[in-house]
Protein backbone atom coordinates (compact mmCIF):
# COMPACT_ATOMS: atom_id res chain seq x y z
CA UNK A 1 0.00 0.00 0.00
CA UNK A 2 2.64 2.47 1.09
CA UNK A 3 4.83 1.35 -1.75
CA UNK A 4 2.16 2.13 -4.31
CA UNK A 5 1.84 5.64 -3.03
CA UNK A 6 5.58 6.14 -3.17
CA UNK A 7 5.73 4.91 -6.74
CA UNK A 8 2.82 7.10 -7.73
CA UNK A 9 4.46 10.12 -6.17
CA UNK A 10 7.70 9.41 -7.96
CA UNK A 11 6.10 9.09 -11.36
CA UNK A 12 4.34 12.37 -10.72
CA UNK A 13 7.67 14.08 -10.21
CA UNK A 14 9.03 12.33 -13.27
CA UNK A 15 6.15 13.75 -15.25
CA UNK A 16 6.55 17.20 -13.93
CA UNK A 17 10.21 17.67 -14.65
CA UNK A 18 10.25 17.84 -18.46
CA UNK A 19 7.38 20.31 -18.33
CA UNK A 20 9.49 22.72 -16.33
CA UNK A 21 12.51 22.34 -18.58
CA UNK A 22 10.57 22.80 -21.77
CA UNK A 23 10.38 26.62 -21.80
CA UNK A 24 14.17 26.93 -21.70
CA UNK A 25 14.63 24.60 -24.62
CA UNK A 26 12.06 26.56 -26.61
CA UNK A 27 13.55 29.86 -25.58
CA UNK A 28 16.71 29.05 -27.52
CA UNK A 29 14.48 28.48 -30.55
CA UNK A 30 12.99 31.91 -30.07
CA UNK A 31 16.46 33.36 -30.29
CA UNK A 32 17.68 31.07 -33.06
CA UNK A 33 14.95 31.67 -35.62
CA UNK A 34 15.48 35.42 -36.19
CA UNK A 35 19.25 34.96 -36.16
CA UNK A 36 18.91 32.31 -38.84
CA UNK A 37 16.75 34.56 -40.97
CA UNK A 38 19.27 37.41 -40.62
CA UNK A 39 22.12 35.09 -41.56
CA UNK A 40 20.24 33.87 -44.61
CA UNK A 41 19.44 37.45 -45.59
CA UNK A 42 23.11 38.46 -45.20
CA UNK A 43 24.31 35.57 -47.41
CA UNK A 44 21.67 36.04 -50.10
CA UNK A 45 22.32 39.78 -50.23
CA UNK A 46 26.13 39.42 -50.38
CA UNK A 47 25.84 36.75 -53.06
CA UNK A 48 23.51 39.08 -54.98
CA UNK A 49 20.85 36.39 -55.01
CA UNK A 50 18.48 39.11 -53.81
CA UNK A 51 18.78 42.74 -54.87
CA UNK A 52 21.12 44.44 -52.37
CA UNK A 53 19.56 47.82 -53.22
CA UNK A 54 16.21 46.66 -51.78
CA UNK A 55 17.62 44.28 -49.20
CA UNK A 56 21.00 45.61 -48.05
CA UNK A 57 22.89 43.07 -45.94
CA UNK A 58 22.02 43.34 -42.22
CA UNK A 59 25.65 44.06 -41.36
CA UNK A 60 25.56 47.25 -43.46
CA UNK A 61 22.31 48.26 -41.72
CA UNK A 62 24.05 47.86 -38.38
CA UNK A 63 26.98 49.92 -39.67
CA UNK A 64 24.57 52.63 -40.83
CA UNK A 65 22.94 52.58 -37.40
CA UNK A 66 26.27 53.24 -35.68
CA UNK A 67 27.09 55.98 -38.19
CA UNK A 68 23.78 57.70 -37.40
CA UNK A 69 24.41 57.30 -33.69
CA UNK A 70 27.87 58.86 -34.06
CA UNK A 71 26.53 61.92 -35.91
CA UNK A 72 23.87 62.31 -33.23
CA UNK A 73 21.12 62.22 -35.86
CA UNK A 74 19.40 59.16 -34.36
CA UNK A 75 19.22 60.59 -30.87
CA UNK A 76 17.36 63.68 -32.00
CA UNK A 77 14.95 61.74 -34.25
CA UNK A 78 14.24 59.18 -31.54
CA UNK A 79 13.78 61.83 -28.87
CA UNK A 80 11.29 63.82 -30.90
CA UNK A 81 9.35 60.69 -31.92
CA UNK A 82 9.21 59.41 -28.36
CA UNK A 83 7.95 62.77 -27.18
CA UNK A 84 5.14 62.66 -29.73
CA UNK A 85 4.33 59.00 -29.04
CA UNK A 86 4.16 59.36 -25.27
CA UNK A 87 2.23 62.64 -25.48
CA UNK A 88 -0.24 61.30 -28.03
CA UNK A 89 -0.57 58.02 -26.20
CA UNK A 90 -1.50 59.70 -22.91
CA UNK A 91 -3.79 62.11 -24.74
CA UNK A 92 -5.69 59.11 -26.08
CA UNK A 93 -5.50 56.73 -23.12
CA UNK A 94 -6.68 59.06 -20.35
CA UNK A 95 -9.93 60.17 -22.00
CA UNK A 96 -10.37 56.60 -23.27
CA UNK A 97 -10.34 55.26 -19.72
CA UNK A 98 -12.57 57.99 -18.29
CA UNK A 99 -15.17 57.82 -21.06
CA UNK A 100 -14.97 54.01 -21.14
CA UNK A 101 -15.73 53.83 -17.40
CA UNK A 102 -18.68 56.20 -17.82
CA UNK A 103 -20.05 54.21 -20.75
CA UNK A 104 -19.70 51.00 -18.79
CA UNK A 105 -21.36 52.38 -15.69
CA UNK A 106 -24.16 54.63 -16.89
CA UNK A 107 -26.80 53.44 -19.27
CA UNK A 108 -27.72 56.92 -20.61
CA UNK A 109 -24.10 57.67 -21.44
CA UNK A 110 -23.79 54.26 -23.05
CA UNK A 111 -26.78 54.88 -25.25
CA UNK A 112 -25.60 58.37 -26.13
CA UNK A 113 -21.96 57.61 -26.91
CA UNK A 114 -21.36 53.96 -27.64
CA UNK A 115 -22.97 53.77 -31.11
CA UNK A 116 -21.25 57.04 -32.02
CA UNK A 117 -17.88 55.63 -31.01
CA UNK A 118 -18.51 52.42 -32.93
CA UNK A 119 -19.38 54.47 -36.01
CA UNK A 120 -16.30 56.70 -35.75
CA UNK A 121 -13.88 53.88 -35.03
CA UNK A 122 -13.38 52.63 -38.60
CA UNK A 123 -12.35 56.10 -39.81
CA UNK A 124 -8.56 56.14 -39.90
CA UNK A 125 -7.30 59.20 -38.05
CA UNK A 126 -4.52 59.41 -40.60
CA UNK A 127 -7.15 60.28 -43.21
CA UNK A 128 -8.08 63.22 -41.03
CA UNK A 129 -4.48 64.42 -40.76
CA UNK A 130 -4.86 67.21 -43.33
CA UNK A 131 -7.71 68.67 -41.28
CA UNK A 132 -5.83 68.18 -38.05
CA UNK A 133 -2.87 70.02 -39.55
CA UNK A 134 -5.14 72.80 -40.81
CA UNK A 135 -6.60 73.24 -37.34
CA UNK A 136 -3.51 72.74 -35.17
CA UNK A 137 -0.70 73.54 -37.59
CA UNK A 138 2.37 71.55 -38.53
CA UNK A 139 3.73 70.89 -35.08
CA UNK A 140 4.19 68.21 -32.45
CA UNK A 141 0.73 68.77 -31.08
CA UNK A 142 -1.02 67.88 -34.33
CA UNK A 143 0.94 64.60 -34.39
CA UNK A 144 -0.06 63.90 -30.82
CA UNK A 145 -3.70 64.52 -31.70
CA UNK A 146 -3.44 62.09 -34.60
CA UNK A 147 -1.93 59.43 -32.36
CA UNK A 148 -4.44 60.13 -29.59
CA UNK A 149 -7.26 59.72 -32.10
CA UNK A 150 -6.20 56.21 -32.98
CA UNK A 151 -5.23 55.13 -29.46
CA UNK A 152 -8.52 56.31 -27.98
CA UNK A 153 -10.78 53.75 -29.66
CA UNK A 154 -9.34 50.42 -28.49
CA UNK A 155 -8.93 51.85 -24.99
CA UNK A 156 -12.46 53.22 -24.69
CA UNK A 157 -14.05 50.07 -26.10
CA UNK A 158 -12.05 47.69 -23.95
CA UNK A 159 -12.58 49.75 -20.82
CA UNK A 160 -16.34 49.82 -21.38
CA UNK A 161 -16.33 46.07 -22.06
CA UNK A 162 -14.24 45.53 -18.92
CA UNK A 163 -16.78 47.37 -16.79
CA UNK A 164 -19.68 45.50 -18.36
CA UNK A 165 -17.89 42.24 -17.56
CA UNK A 166 -17.80 42.91 -13.84
CA UNK A 167 -20.02 40.48 -11.97
CA UNK A 168 -23.05 42.54 -10.85
CA UNK A 169 -22.81 40.95 -7.41
CA UNK A 170 -19.84 43.23 -6.65
CA UNK A 171 -21.97 46.26 -7.43
CA UNK A 172 -24.58 44.87 -5.03
CA UNK A 173 -21.89 44.35 -2.39
CA UNK A 174 -20.69 47.93 -2.82
CA UNK A 175 -24.25 49.25 -2.70
CA UNK A 176 -25.04 47.22 0.41
CA UNK A 177 -21.98 48.65 2.16
CA UNK A 178 -23.01 52.19 1.29
CA UNK A 179 -20.76 53.03 -1.68
CA UNK A 180 -20.88 56.53 -3.16
CA UNK A 181 -20.36 57.36 -6.85
CA UNK A 182 -16.64 57.84 -6.33
CA UNK A 183 -16.39 54.43 -4.63
CA UNK A 184 -18.10 52.69 -7.54
CA UNK A 185 -15.55 54.33 -9.84
CA UNK A 186 -12.35 53.73 -7.93
CA UNK A 187 -13.09 50.59 -5.91
CA UNK A 188 -15.26 48.62 -8.33
CA UNK A 189 -15.30 49.82 -11.95
CA UNK A 190 -11.65 50.81 -12.41
CA UNK A 191 -9.98 47.78 -10.77
CA UNK A 192 -12.64 45.40 -12.09
CA UNK A 193 -12.16 46.62 -15.66
CA UNK A 194 -8.37 46.78 -15.35
CA UNK A 195 -7.43 43.42 -16.95
CA UNK A 196 -9.51 44.00 -20.11
CA UNK A 197 -8.59 47.69 -20.14
CA UNK A 198 -4.88 46.87 -20.21
CA UNK A 199 -5.42 44.66 -23.26
CA UNK A 200 -6.93 47.73 -24.92
CA UNK A 201 -3.96 49.85 -23.87
CA UNK A 202 -1.62 47.25 -25.38
CA UNK A 203 -3.51 47.53 -28.66
CA UNK A 204 -3.39 51.32 -28.39
CA UNK A 205 0.35 51.20 -27.88
CA UNK A 206 0.84 49.21 -31.09
CA UNK A 207 -1.46 51.56 -32.99
CA UNK A 208 0.44 54.58 -31.65
CA UNK A 209 3.63 53.28 -33.27
CA UNK A 210 1.90 52.57 -36.57
CA UNK A 211 0.45 56.04 -36.53
CA UNK A 212 3.59 57.98 -35.62
CA UNK A 213 5.52 56.64 -38.60
CA UNK A 214 2.75 57.55 -41.00
CA UNK A 215 2.12 60.92 -39.34
CA UNK A 216 5.78 61.87 -39.55
CA UNK A 217 5.86 60.91 -43.20
CA UNK A 218 3.18 63.45 -44.06
CA UNK A 219 3.98 66.64 -42.27
CA UNK A 220 7.26 66.60 -40.39
CA UNK A 221 10.94 67.39 -40.64
CA UNK A 222 12.09 65.19 -37.79
CA UNK A 223 11.34 61.87 -36.15
CA UNK A 224 11.77 58.20 -36.97
CA UNK A 225 8.98 58.31 -39.56
CA UNK A 226 10.68 61.27 -41.25
CA UNK A 227 13.98 59.36 -41.28
CA UNK A 228 12.31 56.38 -42.91
CA UNK A 229 10.52 58.53 -45.45
CA UNK A 230 13.46 60.74 -46.55
CA UNK A 231 15.81 57.78 -46.85
CA UNK A 232 13.16 55.93 -48.79
CA UNK A 233 12.71 58.86 -51.15
CA UNK A 234 16.51 59.22 -51.51
CA UNK A 235 16.65 55.48 -52.06
CA UNK A 236 19.02 55.03 -49.10
CA UNK A 237 17.31 51.91 -47.89
CA UNK A 238 19.90 51.22 -45.18
CA UNK A 239 18.64 54.24 -43.25
CA UNK A 240 15.05 53.19 -43.81
CA UNK A 241 15.76 49.79 -42.32
CA UNK A 242 17.39 51.40 -39.30
CA UNK A 243 14.15 53.33 -38.78
CA UNK A 244 12.03 50.20 -39.14
CA UNK A 245 14.15 48.27 -36.66
CA UNK A 246 13.93 51.16 -34.21
CA UNK A 247 10.14 51.16 -34.44
CA UNK A 248 10.06 47.42 -33.92
CA UNK A 249 12.38 47.75 -30.96
CA UNK A 250 10.18 50.41 -29.37
CA UNK A 251 7.09 48.31 -29.94
CA UNK A 252 8.71 45.41 -28.14
CA UNK A 253 10.02 47.63 -25.36
CA UNK A 254 6.65 49.30 -24.76
CA UNK A 255 4.79 46.01 -24.63
CA UNK A 256 7.29 44.67 -22.06
CA UNK A 257 6.82 47.87 -20.08
CA UNK A 258 3.04 47.45 -20.16
CA UNK A 259 3.30 43.77 -19.15
CA UNK A 260 5.39 44.84 -16.19
CA UNK A 261 2.87 47.54 -15.36
CA UNK A 262 0.06 44.99 -15.64
CA UNK A 263 1.73 42.80 -13.03
CA UNK A 264 1.89 45.79 -10.69
CA UNK A 265 -1.67 46.96 -11.39
CA UNK A 266 -3.43 43.58 -11.54
CA UNK A 267 -1.72 41.62 -8.78
CA UNK A 268 -4.85 39.60 -8.01
CA UNK A 269 -4.85 37.63 -11.24
CA UNK A 270 -3.56 34.07 -10.87
Amino acid at each position, binding site marked *: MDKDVAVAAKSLIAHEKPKREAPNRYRSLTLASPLLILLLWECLSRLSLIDARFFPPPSSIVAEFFRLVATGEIASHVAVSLYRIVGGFLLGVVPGIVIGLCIGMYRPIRFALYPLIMALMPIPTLALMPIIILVFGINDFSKMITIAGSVFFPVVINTAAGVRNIDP*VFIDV*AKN*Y*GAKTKDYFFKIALPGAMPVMIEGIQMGQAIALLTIVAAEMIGANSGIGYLIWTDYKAFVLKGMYVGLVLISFFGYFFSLLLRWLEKKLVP*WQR
Partner: protein
Amino acid sequence: MNPDVKIRVEGLTKLFFKKKVGVCALDRVSFEVKNGEFVSLIGPSGCGKTTLLRILAGLEEASAGTYELVRDDPNKPLQSMIFQERGVIPWMTVEENVAFGLRLRHAPKAEIKERTEYYLNKVGLWEFRRHYPSEISGGMKQRVSIARAFANDPEILFMDEPFAAIDEQNKFILQEELLSIWEETHKTVLFITHSIDEALLLSDRILLMSRQPGRIVREKTIDLPRPRRITAVRANPEMAEAFVDIWNHLQNAVRGSALERRDEWALEPI
Protein backbone atom coordinates in the same frame (compact mmCIF):
# COMPACT_ATOMS: atom_id res chain seq x y z
CA MET B 1 -46.92 47.46 18.49
CA ASN B 2 -44.11 45.65 20.17
CA PRO B 3 -41.31 48.15 20.81
CA ASP B 4 -38.76 45.34 20.71
CA VAL B 5 -39.34 44.64 17.01
CA LYS B 6 -36.29 45.12 14.75
CA ILE B 7 -37.58 43.95 11.37
CA ARG B 8 -41.23 44.35 10.42
CA VAL B 9 -42.49 43.01 7.10
CA GLU B 10 -46.08 43.45 6.01
CA GLY B 11 -47.72 42.08 2.90
CA LEU B 12 -44.50 42.14 0.92
CA THR B 13 -45.12 41.07 -2.67
CA LYS B 14 -42.71 40.85 -5.56
CA LEU B 15 -43.50 40.31 -9.23
CA PHE B 16 -40.81 39.80 -11.83
CA PHE B 17 -41.52 40.33 -15.49
CA LYS B 18 -39.73 38.14 -17.97
CA LYS B 19 -40.72 38.90 -21.55
CA LYS B 20 -44.10 40.21 -20.47
CA VAL B 21 -44.83 37.10 -18.38
CA GLY B 22 -45.19 37.92 -14.71
CA VAL B 23 -43.59 35.68 -12.11
CA CYS B 24 -44.81 36.07 -8.57
CA ALA B 25 -41.76 35.50 -6.40
CA LEU B 26 -43.24 36.65 -3.09
CA ASP B 27 -46.89 36.63 -2.15
CA ARG B 28 -47.91 38.91 0.75
CA VAL B 29 -45.13 37.93 3.10
CA SER B 30 -45.55 39.18 6.66
CA PHE B 31 -43.43 38.57 9.73
CA GLU B 32 -41.54 40.30 12.49
CA VAL B 33 -38.10 39.76 13.95
CA LYS B 34 -37.28 40.89 17.47
CA ASN B 35 -34.16 42.78 18.42
CA GLY B 36 -31.26 40.38 18.86
CA GLU B 37 -33.19 37.44 17.48
CA PHE B 38 -31.67 34.87 15.12
CA VAL B 39 -34.33 33.88 12.60
CA SER B 40 -33.91 31.36 9.79
CA LEU B 41 -35.91 31.11 6.59
CA ILE B 42 -36.30 27.68 5.05
CA GLY B 43 -38.12 26.94 1.84
CA PRO B 44 -37.82 25.05 -1.39
CA SER B 45 -35.49 26.35 -4.07
CA GLY B 46 -36.91 29.24 -6.05
CA CYS B 47 -39.48 30.19 -3.42
CA GLY B 48 -38.19 33.73 -3.17
CA LYS B 49 -35.86 33.67 -0.17
CA THR B 50 -33.06 35.55 -1.90
CA THR B 51 -35.57 37.99 -3.35
CA LEU B 52 -36.97 38.70 0.11
CA LEU B 53 -33.52 39.34 1.54
CA ARG B 54 -32.51 41.53 -1.38
CA ILE B 55 -35.59 43.69 -0.89
CA LEU B 56 -34.84 44.09 2.82
CA ALA B 57 -31.20 44.89 2.01
CA GLY B 58 -32.30 47.64 -0.36
CA LEU B 59 -31.05 45.93 -3.51
CA GLU B 60 -34.46 45.33 -5.04
CA GLU B 61 -37.79 47.16 -5.02
CA ALA B 62 -40.89 45.49 -3.63
CA SER B 63 -43.95 45.42 -5.90
CA ALA B 64 -46.32 45.88 -2.97
CA GLY B 65 -46.31 45.83 0.79
CA THR B 66 -44.04 47.51 3.28
CA TYR B 67 -41.10 46.71 5.46
CA GLU B 68 -39.33 48.52 8.21
CA LEU B 69 -35.89 48.08 9.73
CA VAL B 70 -35.82 49.82 13.09
CA ARG B 71 -32.72 51.89 13.73
CA ASP B 72 -31.51 52.10 17.32
CA ASP B 73 -28.00 53.48 16.97
CA PRO B 74 -27.54 56.32 14.48
CA ASN B 75 -23.77 55.77 14.42
CA LYS B 76 -23.93 52.21 13.13
CA PRO B 77 -24.85 51.03 9.67
CA LEU B 78 -28.33 49.59 9.70
CA GLN B 79 -27.74 46.34 7.84
CA SER B 80 -25.15 44.30 5.98
CA MET B 81 -25.66 41.33 3.75
CA ILE B 82 -23.61 38.17 3.36
CA PHE B 83 -24.19 37.04 -0.20
CA GLN B 84 -25.12 33.54 -1.36
CA GLU B 85 -21.80 33.19 -3.18
CA ARG B 86 -19.05 35.10 -4.97
CA GLY B 87 -19.48 38.14 -2.72
CA VAL B 88 -15.77 38.54 -1.97
CA ILE B 89 -14.21 41.16 -4.21
CA PRO B 90 -11.35 39.58 -6.20
CA TRP B 91 -9.20 42.71 -6.60
CA MET B 92 -8.96 43.37 -2.89
CA THR B 93 -6.84 41.41 -0.46
CA VAL B 94 -8.49 39.50 2.37
CA GLU B 95 -7.71 42.41 4.66
CA GLU B 96 -9.10 45.04 2.27
CA ASN B 97 -12.26 42.98 1.85
CA VAL B 98 -12.81 42.79 5.58
CA ALA B 99 -12.20 46.54 5.94
CA PHE B 100 -14.43 47.36 2.95
CA GLY B 101 -17.53 48.54 4.81
CA LEU B 102 -15.52 50.50 7.38
CA ARG B 103 -13.50 52.23 4.64
CA LEU B 104 -16.59 53.13 2.65
CA ARG B 105 -18.12 54.89 5.62
CA HIS B 106 -14.82 56.55 6.52
CA ALA B 107 -14.48 55.08 9.97
CA PRO B 108 -11.48 56.36 11.94
CA LYS B 109 -8.20 54.68 10.91
CA ALA B 110 -7.61 53.20 14.34
CA GLU B 111 -11.08 51.70 14.42
CA ILE B 112 -10.68 50.19 10.94
CA LYS B 113 -7.39 48.62 11.97
CA GLU B 114 -8.67 47.31 15.25
CA ARG B 115 -11.93 45.84 13.98
CA THR B 116 -10.31 44.34 10.88
CA GLU B 117 -7.59 42.70 12.93
CA TYR B 118 -10.08 41.43 15.46
CA TYR B 119 -12.30 39.71 12.95
CA LEU B 120 -9.42 38.43 10.82
CA ASN B 121 -8.19 36.64 13.92
CA LYS B 122 -11.68 35.57 14.85
CA VAL B 123 -12.17 33.69 11.58
CA GLY B 124 -8.59 32.45 11.50
CA LEU B 125 -7.44 34.41 8.46
CA TRP B 126 -4.77 36.57 10.03
CA GLU B 127 -1.95 34.77 8.21
CA PHE B 128 -3.84 35.12 4.94
CA ARG B 129 -4.65 38.82 5.26
CA ARG B 130 -2.41 39.82 2.36
CA HIS B 131 -3.68 37.08 0.04
CA TYR B 132 -6.09 37.70 -2.80
CA PRO B 133 -9.36 35.73 -2.91
CA SER B 134 -8.09 33.69 -5.88
CA GLU B 135 -5.35 32.38 -3.60
CA ILE B 136 -7.60 31.03 -0.84
CA SER B 137 -10.19 28.24 -0.65
CA GLY B 138 -13.96 28.55 -0.92
CA GLY B 139 -14.40 28.07 2.82
CA MET B 140 -11.89 30.81 3.53
CA LYS B 141 -13.69 33.15 1.15
CA GLN B 142 -16.90 32.61 3.04
CA ARG B 143 -15.02 33.43 6.24
CA VAL B 144 -13.95 36.69 4.60
CA SER B 145 -17.59 37.47 3.85
CA ILE B 146 -18.57 36.83 7.44
CA ALA B 147 -15.68 38.84 8.85
CA ARG B 148 -16.48 41.71 6.50
CA ALA B 149 -20.10 41.85 7.63
CA PHE B 150 -19.29 41.65 11.35
CA ALA B 151 -16.41 44.14 11.07
CA ASN B 152 -18.84 46.62 9.54
CA ASP B 153 -20.80 46.30 12.79
CA PRO B 154 -24.35 46.72 11.47
CA GLU B 155 -27.44 46.43 13.61
CA ILE B 156 -28.95 43.74 11.38
CA LEU B 157 -27.26 40.97 9.40
CA PHE B 158 -28.79 39.30 6.38
CA MET B 159 -27.20 36.03 5.36
CA ASP B 160 -28.07 34.21 2.17
CA GLU B 161 -27.04 30.56 2.44
CA PRO B 162 -23.53 31.49 3.50
CA PHE B 163 -22.43 27.88 3.91
CA ALA B 164 -24.24 26.26 0.98
CA ALA B 165 -21.16 25.73 -1.17
CA ILE B 166 -18.91 24.44 1.60
CA ASP B 167 -18.08 20.85 2.51
CA GLU B 168 -19.63 19.31 5.65
CA GLN B 169 -16.56 19.47 7.85
CA ASN B 170 -15.83 23.12 7.16
CA LYS B 171 -19.49 23.90 7.42
CA PHE B 172 -19.61 22.59 11.01
CA ILE B 173 -16.56 24.64 11.93
CA LEU B 174 -17.95 27.79 10.31
CA GLN B 175 -21.36 27.34 11.91
CA GLU B 176 -19.81 27.14 15.35
CA GLU B 177 -17.59 30.12 14.56
CA LEU B 178 -20.64 32.08 13.46
CA LEU B 179 -22.44 31.09 16.65
CA SER B 180 -19.57 32.20 18.83
CA ILE B 181 -19.26 35.56 17.04
CA TRP B 182 -23.00 36.05 17.15
CA GLU B 183 -23.18 35.24 20.85
CA GLU B 184 -20.64 38.01 21.48
CA THR B 185 -22.62 40.62 19.59
CA HIS B 186 -26.24 39.45 19.62
CA LYS B 187 -27.06 41.18 16.42
CA THR B 188 -30.41 40.65 14.78
CA VAL B 189 -29.93 38.03 12.07
CA LEU B 190 -32.14 36.88 9.23
CA PHE B 191 -30.57 33.74 7.85
CA ILE B 192 -31.49 31.78 4.73
CA THR B 193 -30.61 28.12 4.53
CA HIS B 194 -31.55 24.87 2.87
CA SER B 195 -30.17 22.86 5.74
CA ILE B 196 -32.60 21.92 8.49
CA ASP B 197 -29.73 20.95 10.79
CA GLU B 198 -28.18 24.36 10.31
CA ALA B 199 -31.44 26.13 11.07
CA LEU B 200 -32.00 24.06 14.22
CA LEU B 201 -28.49 24.74 15.42
CA LEU B 202 -28.46 28.48 14.85
CA SER B 203 -31.97 29.83 15.19
CA ASP B 204 -34.24 31.16 17.85
CA ARG B 205 -37.05 30.80 15.37
CA ILE B 206 -37.51 29.15 11.98
CA LEU B 207 -39.87 30.48 9.31
CA LEU B 208 -41.00 27.99 6.71
CA MET B 209 -41.91 29.17 3.25
CA SER B 210 -44.17 27.56 0.68
CA ARG B 211 -42.97 26.92 -2.80
CA GLN B 212 -43.32 29.66 -5.38
CA PRO B 213 -45.03 32.07 -5.01
CA GLY B 214 -43.31 32.32 -1.65
CA ARG B 215 -45.46 32.75 1.42
CA ILE B 216 -44.60 32.12 5.02
CA VAL B 217 -46.72 29.16 6.03
CA ARG B 218 -45.37 28.14 9.41
CA GLU B 219 -42.98 29.07 12.11
CA LYS B 220 -41.28 27.16 14.87
CA THR B 221 -39.57 28.44 17.97
CA ILE B 222 -36.38 26.63 18.93
CA ASP B 223 -35.90 27.09 22.64
CA LEU B 224 -32.77 25.03 23.07
CA PRO B 225 -30.44 26.71 25.57
CA ARG B 226 -27.32 28.50 24.31
CA PRO B 227 -24.43 28.17 23.78
CA ARG B 228 -25.34 25.31 21.49
CA ARG B 229 -23.18 22.65 19.93
CA ILE B 230 -23.93 20.53 16.91
CA THR B 231 -23.59 17.32 18.87
CA ALA B 232 -26.07 18.50 21.49
CA VAL B 233 -28.61 19.50 18.86
CA ARG B 234 -28.22 16.18 17.11
CA ALA B 235 -28.72 14.25 20.37
CA ASN B 236 -31.86 16.11 21.41
CA PRO B 237 -35.04 14.05 20.69
CA GLU B 238 -37.21 17.17 20.35
CA MET B 239 -34.89 18.47 17.69
CA ALA B 240 -35.02 15.14 15.92
CA GLU B 241 -38.78 15.48 15.84
CA ALA B 242 -38.59 19.03 14.59
CA PHE B 243 -36.18 17.88 11.89
CA VAL B 244 -38.65 15.27 10.61
CA ASP B 245 -41.46 17.77 10.70
CA ILE B 246 -39.61 20.39 8.68
CA TRP B 247 -38.39 17.68 6.36
CA ASN B 248 -41.98 16.59 5.68
CA HIS B 249 -43.01 20.15 5.07
CA LEU B 250 -40.26 20.64 2.51
CA GLN B 251 -41.12 17.35 0.83
CA ASN B 252 -44.74 18.41 0.56
CA ALA B 253 -43.80 21.86 -0.60
CA VAL B 254 -41.61 20.47 -3.33
CA ARG B 255 -44.29 18.05 -4.44
CA GLY B 256 -46.78 20.86 -4.30
CA SER B 257 -49.33 19.18 -2.04
CA ALA B 258 -49.35 21.75 0.68
CA LEU B 259 -50.94 19.60 3.35
CA GLU B 260 -50.01 21.78 6.24
CA ARG B 261 -50.59 20.41 9.68
CA ARG B 262 -50.86 23.59 11.59
CA ASP B 263 -51.79 22.15 15.00
CA GLU B 264 -48.30 20.94 15.87
CA TRP B 265 -46.87 24.28 15.12
CA ALA B 266 -46.27 27.07 17.41
CA LEU B 267 -47.53 29.51 18.08
CA GLU B 268 -47.32 33.23 17.69
CA PRO B 269 -49.77 34.24 15.05
CA ILE B 270 -48.13 36.48 12.50
